[in-house]
């Protein structure tokens, strides 16, 4: 393995190149630093040295997700009516239901997808943002891997939204039992989508920029 902490790693940004995010074409950066957006000649994606305002945008999305995560857990995601009596269920009480009925595997899947993954994702992304802002040199390889896993796993939190959809479709009026969707699912779906966008907005290359001495200020 080559020297990874070298002060002058051979990066696209240092070589005056844009790395197209759409098709990986390397495009020479125009010398005149005009305000005109440059587009990739091959696929048409807007070119940036780094994702624009990555840190500020990711923070904003994460704060929004944290706020929405509270009603997502407090409000019911399903409301079950059985012979006139109604029972609201939150995400957590859904997990407990599966534990009580000895479906430990399913309880674990929902617990991981709906509670562990969203919280871990928020913590990891906040940690990465703080480490980048403090220009940390700590284990860049591991931090990049952590980011990659976060981006990959985050979508699985949509599981609970789909469970509610299928339950609502299968258990309807006209039978003894009906299941209705509760408002919690709206907030929860918003949390999943917003954290997915937050992970996409974060630029992992910022982790590596901090390792370079005399790094030019990230203009774009």
């Amino acid at each position: 393995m080559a020297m990874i902490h070298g002060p002058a790693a051979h990066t696209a940004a240092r070589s005056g190149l844009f790395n197209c995010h759409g098709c990986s074409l390397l495009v020479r950066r125009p010398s005149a630093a005009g305000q005109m957006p440059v587009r990739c000649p091959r696929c048409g994606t807007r070119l940036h040295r780094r994702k624009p305002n990555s840190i500020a945008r990711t923070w904003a999305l994460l704060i929004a997700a944290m706020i929405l995560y509270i009603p997502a857990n407090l409000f019911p995601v399903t409301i079950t009516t059985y012979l006139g009596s109604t029972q609201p269920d939150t995400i957590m009480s859904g997990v407990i239901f599966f534990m009580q009925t000895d479906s430990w595997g399913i309880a674990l899947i929902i617990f991981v997808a709906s509670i562990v993954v969203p919280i871990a994702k928020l913590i990891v992304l906040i940690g990465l943002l703080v480490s980048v802002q403090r220009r940390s040199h700590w284990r860049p390889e591991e931090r990049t891997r952590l980011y990659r896993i976060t981006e990959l796993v985050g979508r699985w939190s949509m599981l609970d939204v789909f469970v509610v959809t299928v339950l609502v479709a299968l258990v309807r009026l006209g039978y003894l039992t009906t299941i209705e969707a509760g408002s919690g699912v709206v907030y929860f779906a918003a949390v999943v989508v917003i954290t997915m966008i937050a992970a996409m907005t974060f630029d992992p290359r910022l982790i590596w920029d901090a390792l370079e001495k005399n790094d030019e200020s990230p203009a774009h």
Partner: protein
Amino acid sequence: MTQTLIACHECDLIHRVQPLPENSKARCRRCGALLYAHFPKTIEWSLALAITGLVLLVIANIYPFLSLESQGTVLETTLITGTIILSEQSMAGVAILVLLTSMLIPCILLGALVYVLWPMKLGHRLPANRRAFRLALNLRPWSMTEIFLLGILVSVVKLAKLATIIPGTALFSFLGLVLVLASINTFLAPQTIWEKMDEWR
């Protein structure tokens, strides 16, 4: 024109593009991110899979998806039932999200791939094919059929004591669609296809 240099998307390190053995992938030597892959038959495989996926998606929408049998009566649902019921319960936003991630986005993704790859196989190209290919690549994380399938499994376990759930033809078709989309993620080598597009410049 073949691209000789490529930069890692996750740490920006520049690598020289080297010929790879068949069916292998190149990873960044600094951070381990995927750089490019070499599948000699990527166009043929991805095209065949995308067409299969579209057929399966049509079948999944025509036939009954899941049926619920309780107290001697059978309630039949289709793939879109959940979306309809959610929108009736004034959950339009969630209904649209479910419709997009489980059906519309996979459909657009597969359609865009067919639009780009079929003419490419025949040696033609259609207008806006680059835009279509970019769209297909960007939509990949938002196609969530596999998560929907897991959601069905969880719901069936939840309802197992309440009623009998009968899987319909559409469910098996949907399972096929999940496998097709996963295979496309494996066999699609975007770099090869972008370079093929460059040959027409």
